[in-house]
């Protein structure tokens, strides 16, 4: 450092000037080099026919390894399963299979593969490719995260727990065009599964990886993967399937931040964005410019809190019930969540009154849209507060009029009475035991945090209950939740297929995902009976029974039925509301361009 009293440097002026000049020259060189480096970058592709703001940068694009929606959207475009889903109704349609036969008990499926199918490298694709792909999905050594989707295939569970072999699993090619699969119990939702990401066929040479150059069989193929920037897919010239997509190229933009996604969409640089910041939702709903583009449709997902039944006072059903009855879910959905989601009083989301109300919201926003029930044939159960039309406790949701829906599960006085009867102290009384302070655990994120604070206030106000809030980053949160080391913890569950089984098998005693310490033999039995039942009507009744038990005694505090949140340009055609929030790109087109 220069200090006072050092030698004057003016004497060395000429040398100094040169050194300084050298530095300036170096800096100029640096600037030029940077600009050259900038211009030298690989040429960027022109705008694709459709640009999707796809959320976070995808993890793996291998069907067996992918876990999230950003990956699924791309994988289902570059692969084609046996079955495609109608973009509007989700009805199964021919994909790689031109037809199928299902046994009366829904335990045996036979698929006839289309003739002349090819991978994008030109090699033929037949029934054996599906057999190999599906067995690899089940293979315990491969460790596919969604391998359990096929665990009910006869012989699969034995193979996975080490008591059986690959050859004993009942997935077989009868010849090059016929494929047969047999299950331990009826699996009426299997056609839907065939359209899902994990069941897409995988090229024999993929070696567990995906990327440009690895053959796929969909109408598009991956041509560019710029990490954390964009993925481009372009028409696959070898595609021989039934779809005739209109889009030649599609870009999937990766952007971690929802604000950035919204900015990109607002600037017209993307045509559809799958993520928006929660704070923007009220504006998107009400602003006349944005409202027609904002699509918040019923999505088969439930937002709820898990309750730890291993810890008092949550082991007392009266406390669990009181916690639930003191939540004004209508207010929560309206004031905290922006108004799109609907209150949930049961665990299977979107019962008919909720769908009707959602339809009304769309009509109020001037968006004509026909919403279909999320789970065909299932009449969900809901836990109500005080008596409704002579009914009390847990009742079928369809018996509730949609105008009565909002406040159905909100009964703070009833909640206090329940607590009082169970010997707990309530506001205004000095009798009974004091409810110990509870901890609300949630992962970091603005919505989770707002909901936790809102609940904390509601419980304090209605029940005099003290609670603390603990926020953890996602993986630490999962670690604590898995160890059942919490009181109350925030959760979501999204359907894998449109059937109550996807929700109601979550809390059986042997489920690895229950994470609540709850075990109820009657519930387990109901679920087992429902899974084994082939008769559709009877099956649904058994699921209703299981849901009733879950709501009466179970470890869940349902909060709201989830909605999708897509911002879609008015130029985009073929985008329909559907409960899986899966929008097959084969059907999507553009009005202009």
């Amino acid at each position, binding site marked *: *450092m*220069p200090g006072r009293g*050092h030698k*004057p*440097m*003016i004497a*060395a002026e000429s040398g100094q*000037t040169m*050194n300084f000049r*050298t530095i300036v020259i170096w*800096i100029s060189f*640096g600037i030029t080099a*940077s*600009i050259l*480096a*900038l211009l030298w*970058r690989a040429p*960027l592709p022109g705008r694709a026919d459709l640009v999707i703001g796809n959320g976070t940068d*995808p*993890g*793996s694009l*291998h069907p067996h390894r992918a876990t999230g929606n950003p990956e699924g959207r791309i994988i289902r475009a570059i692969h084609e399963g046996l079955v495609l889903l109608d973009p509007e109704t989700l009805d199964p349609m021919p994909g790689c299979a031109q037809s199928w036969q299902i046994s009366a008990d829904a335990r045996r499926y036979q698929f006839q593969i289309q003739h002349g199918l090819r991978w994008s490298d030109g090699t033929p694709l037949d029934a054996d490719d599906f057999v190999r792909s599906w067995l690899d999905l089940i293979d*315990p050594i*491969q*460790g*596919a*995260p969604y*391998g*359990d989707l096929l*665990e009910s295939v006869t012989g699969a569970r034995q193979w*996975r*727990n*080490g008591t059986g072999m690959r050859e004993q699993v009942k997935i077989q090619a009868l010849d090059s065009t016929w494929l047969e699969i047999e299950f331990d119990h009826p699996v009426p939702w299997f056609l839907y599964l065939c359209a899902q990401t994990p069941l897409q066929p995988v090229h024999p040479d993929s070696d*567990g*990886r*995906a990327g440009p150059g690895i053959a796929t069989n969909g109408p598009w193929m991956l041509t560019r993967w*710029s*990490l*954390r*920037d964009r993925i481009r897919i372009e028409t696959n010239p070898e595609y021989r399937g039934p779809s005739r997509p209109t889009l030649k190229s599609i870009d999937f*933009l990766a*952007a*971690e*931040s929802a604000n*950035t996604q919204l*900015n*990109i969409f*607002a*600037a017209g*640089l993307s045509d559809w964005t799958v993520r928006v910041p929660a704070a923007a939702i009220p504006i998107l709903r009400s602003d006349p410019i944005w409202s027609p583009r904002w699509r918040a449709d019923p999505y088969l997902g439930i937002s709820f809190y898990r309750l730890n039944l291993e810890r008092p006072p949550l082991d007392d059903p009266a406390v669990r019930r009181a916690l639930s009855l003191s939540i004004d879910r209508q207010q929560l959905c309206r004031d905290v969540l922006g108004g799109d989601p609907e209150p949930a009083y049961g665990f299977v989301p979107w019962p008919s009154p909720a769908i009707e109300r959602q339809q009304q919201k769309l009509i109020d926003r001037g968006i004509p849209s026909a919403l279909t029930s999320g789970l065909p044939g299932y009449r969900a159960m809901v836990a109500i507060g005080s008596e409704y039309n002579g009914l009390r406790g847990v009742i079928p949701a369809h018996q509730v009029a949609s105008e009565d829906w909002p406040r159905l599960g909100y009964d703070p006085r009833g909640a206090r009475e329940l607590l009082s009867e169970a010997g707990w102290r309530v506001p205004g009384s000095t009798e009974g035991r004091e409810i110990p302070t509870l901890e609300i655990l949630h992962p970091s994120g603005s919505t989770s945090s707002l909901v936790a604070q809102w609940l904390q206030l509601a419980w304090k106000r209605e029940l005099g209950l003290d609670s603390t809030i603990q926020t953890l*980053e*996602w*993986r*630490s949160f*999962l*670690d*604590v939740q898995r160890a059942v080391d919490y009181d109350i913890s925030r959760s979501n*569950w999204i359907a894998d297929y449109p059937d109550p089984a996807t929700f109601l098998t979550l809390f059986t005693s042997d489920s*690895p*995902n229950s994470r609540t310490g709850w075990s109820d033999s009657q519930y387990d039995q109901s679920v087992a009976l429902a899974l084994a039942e082939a008769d559709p009507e009877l099956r649904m009744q058994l699921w209703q029974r299981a849901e009733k038990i879950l709501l009466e005694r179970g470890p869940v505090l349902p909060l709201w039925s989830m909605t999708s949140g897509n911002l879609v340009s008015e130029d985009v055609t073929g985008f329909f509301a559907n409960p899986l929030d899966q929008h097959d790109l084969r059907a999507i087109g553009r009005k202009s361009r």
Partner: protein
Amino acid sequence: MSRLLLKRLGASLVTIWAVFTISFFIIRAAPGGPFDADRDPPPDVKRAIEERYDLDAPLWSQYLDQLQDWMMLDPGPSLRQPDHDVASILAAGLPISLTIGGLALLLGTTVGIFLGLIAALRVGGWLDHLIVVIASVGISLPLYLIAGMLVLAVSFGLGWLPPAGWESVPSLIMPVLCLALAPAAQAARLVRSGLIEMSSEEFARTARAKGISPFRVLFRHCLRPALIPLVATLGPMAAALLTGSLVIEQIFAIPGVGMHFIQGALNRDYPLVLGAVLLYTVLLQLMTLLADLMLLSLDPRLRGDAS
């Protein structure tokens, strides 16, 4: 000089190893794992996944394996993006971060030196006060606020530049401007105070007495010694800028390496986190060395010490 370089290289290797070791054990001590999800696979399957990535081996053996892999510069695939090797992930982002960070560094220091020079020339005047205020604001305003306001004004108000993305040269302007703000402010403050201090030195007074103009005195005679404090801070500043900024990359959707520090850690993508940390360490060592060499060229008194 070569002895100095050799000594510095040895010290750098030890530092890099220490950083690797500490980072390895810290990230492994974090709760949760790379394959945790809302939905857990059955225990057998989870074990198989861990076996596949050697995550079931004792920690010390994983440490030795990783150390060996990194010494061969082959850390293997990312755990979250298994279709890509960690090396290729970093290699894809590094040129982008280098470009944006390099431009920001050059722009920031050039503008900063220029502003510092002007402020020192008009010390006590309104221009000086203005520059000092701007520099203070530049240092204290959070980056996300500046970036957000810039996007609002330039992209949506004026419609001049794209709000985000990595598509064209115009899309780099705002990120570079935002990133350049802090170094510019810092450079302006350091150069200003350095110049004010130098201008009261005997050599400067002598030069002024000889009739040399105040600007020429500052520019030709005082600037070089006044740059010394700035150059001393340049090493860490350059390393931080060149390895990307999480905030800037997030707001402008820039696919540089800055996000890997945070996302890699949040996803428990152990090899990626180590890669990002090592990259930063190496750059920091390199930039500090460069800054020291620049100091040597600026300050002849140091040359005696160095040899």
